[in-house]
């Protein structure tokens, strides 16, 4: 009994230290008497913690009560690889990301699904990666993931639905762009929801490179080797470009718009939107494929008329990501329907209150009162 209390105390202490929170601040944020002493006693296992206090502490620390009460020690948090590390609140953001992944994992497990990464793992030597590796990997992944001729249009959905990659959209504003993690919950990608859709697509493709090379180029190694990081990031960009703008489809699309060895600005913008990439990504790819020369490419990108056409087209094609991934909502709702996830927990998973739950579910076309048990015979 005392042993459990000591365990709870040390878990609270570890989680608090991870987010650099003082004992006094934790007490204050958790609605406990705001003295460092309160938390100090709890951390030493010298004070009983009421259930409501546990809930409040767990919420501040972004961990679950079951982790605090578990008889076995929870695994250490996995390493998160940032494309551009946020300057503010990084640890809190990481904890929220992990919490989302864990909840997603719970929904999967309650539905009897495995979260094992099904993404292909590519064994490459970090010392000898170059552009040809990027091209080879991109072609392989295009085929293995069945991405078709317009990969950006389907990449996120295929990653999530077919390859068990968890996707969390979070508004990171100007700070941070994307992050990747592989934990016991499987692979996951964090995408900045405030970015343009085509930029998000590029981030997805970039992060896929990290996921498939996660074992070959361990993220911790990247953290400690700046030179390697720069090279790997460059190759990840080349991979993303090759993946989203595959040689044949992009060449065909480009050439079919060329008349008398010229192509209209508006046609370039249209091709970018058709492939769901930014005009910058398209122009660089066309330069790389030598379909236009570098000087022309740079001139186009700095031309105000081209920029205006690009901007006008953006408004029409802009779409925001879902606040919560559809697959996660579907799994959580299925678990709820099957009597495996309580209604309050479902509301918590969907970031809403009990009374707003029906509204949130309707946004995803689910209705609690609906009878979803009607079946048909299969042949």
């Amino acid at each position, binding site marked *: *009994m005392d042993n*459990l*209390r000591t365990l*709870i105390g040390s878990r609270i202490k570890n989680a608090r230290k991870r987010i650099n929170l003082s004992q006094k601040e934790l007490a204050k944020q958790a609605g406990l008497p705001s003295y460092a002493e309160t938390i100090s006693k709890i951390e030493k296992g010298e004070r*009983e*913690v*009421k*259930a*409501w206090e*546990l*809930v409040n502490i767990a919420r501040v620390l972004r961990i*679950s*009560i*079951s982790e605090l*009460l*578990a*008889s076995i020690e929870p695994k250490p948090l996995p390493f998160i690889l940032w494309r551009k590390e946020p300057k503010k609140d990084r640890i809190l953001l990481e904890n929220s990301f992990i919490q989302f992944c864990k909840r997603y994992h*719970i929904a999967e*497990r*309650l539905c009897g699904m495995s979260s094992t990464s099904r993404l292909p793992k590519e064994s490459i030597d970090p010392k000898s990666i170059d552009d040809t590796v990027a091209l080879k990997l991109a072609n392989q992944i295009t085929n293995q993931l069945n991405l078709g001729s317009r990969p950006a249009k389907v990449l996120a959905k295929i990653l999530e639905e077919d390859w068990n990659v968890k996707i969390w959209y979070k508004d990171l504003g100007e700070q941070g762009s994307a992050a990747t993690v592989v934990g016991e919950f499987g692979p996951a990608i964090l995408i900045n929801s405030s970015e343009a859709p085509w930029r998000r697509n590029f981030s997805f493709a970039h992060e896929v490179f990290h996921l498939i090379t996660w074992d070959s180029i361990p993220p911790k190694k990247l953290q400690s080797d700046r030179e390697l990081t720069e090279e790997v990031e460059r190759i990840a960009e080349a991979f993303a470009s090759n993946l989203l703008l595959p040689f044949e489809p992009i060449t065909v699309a480009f050439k079919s718009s060329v008349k008398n060895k010229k192509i209209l600005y508006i046609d370039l913008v249209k091709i970018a939107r058709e492939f769901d990439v930014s005009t910058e990504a398209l122009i660089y790819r066309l330069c790389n494929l030598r379909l236009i020369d570098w000087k022309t490419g740079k001139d186009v990108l700095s031309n105000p008329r081209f920029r205006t056409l690009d901007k006008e087209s953006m408004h029409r094609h802009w779409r925001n990501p879902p606040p919560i991934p559809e697959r996660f909502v579907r799994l959580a709702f299925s*678990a*709820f329907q099957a*009597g*495996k*996830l*309580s*209604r*309050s*927990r479902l509301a*918590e998973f969907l970031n809403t*209150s*009990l*009374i707003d739950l*029906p*509204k949130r579910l309707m946004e995803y076309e689910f209705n609690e*009162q609906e009878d979803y048990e009607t079946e048909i015979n299969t042949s």
Partner: protein
Amino acid sequence: MSKRIMRLKLILLDADVIIEAYRIGIWLDLIGRVQIAVPSIVAHDEALFYSEEEGRIPQQINLPKLIQKGEICELMASDIEMGDLYSKFDRVFVEGLHEGEAEAIALIYAQKAEGYKFCTGDKVAIQSLAMIGYSSEGISMEKLLSNVGLQKNLSHQFTESYFKKWLGIGKKRLITGNGLSKSST
């Protein structure tokens, strides 16, 4: 003898039942007829608002105020009691149970809510009660209201048939060990 002690039925309420009671306008009648207790998490964290109809402006439920006035009482489980309950279930099952419901069941399991019946319309909570062998400590909202003369048309999840169905599933789980920890089977 105070009015509160005169009320013979002791009921431990889950958040969904409180919200439903407010929604259909019987809350005041209910607390006048039965001795209500709420788990601390439900009181402070879950049953916060209700809405008479979907889309209407939410109204506040102030349970702490009622607790302060002695109209209802608050029961608190400790960390150890919560731990004891969680250790009964396997890791996957317990993740589906909300802390508010877990606290109510932990209180029953720790004999800290003696004489109280737990009233909930939540599938997981109803099953959990049966899975720890405390089926008789649960009551559906329909039955509760009928016992105190407050019959109303309720949403399906608060009916006796719904309660019995999930209690039955929980009892099966108790027999098969499905959802229970290895040490409990």
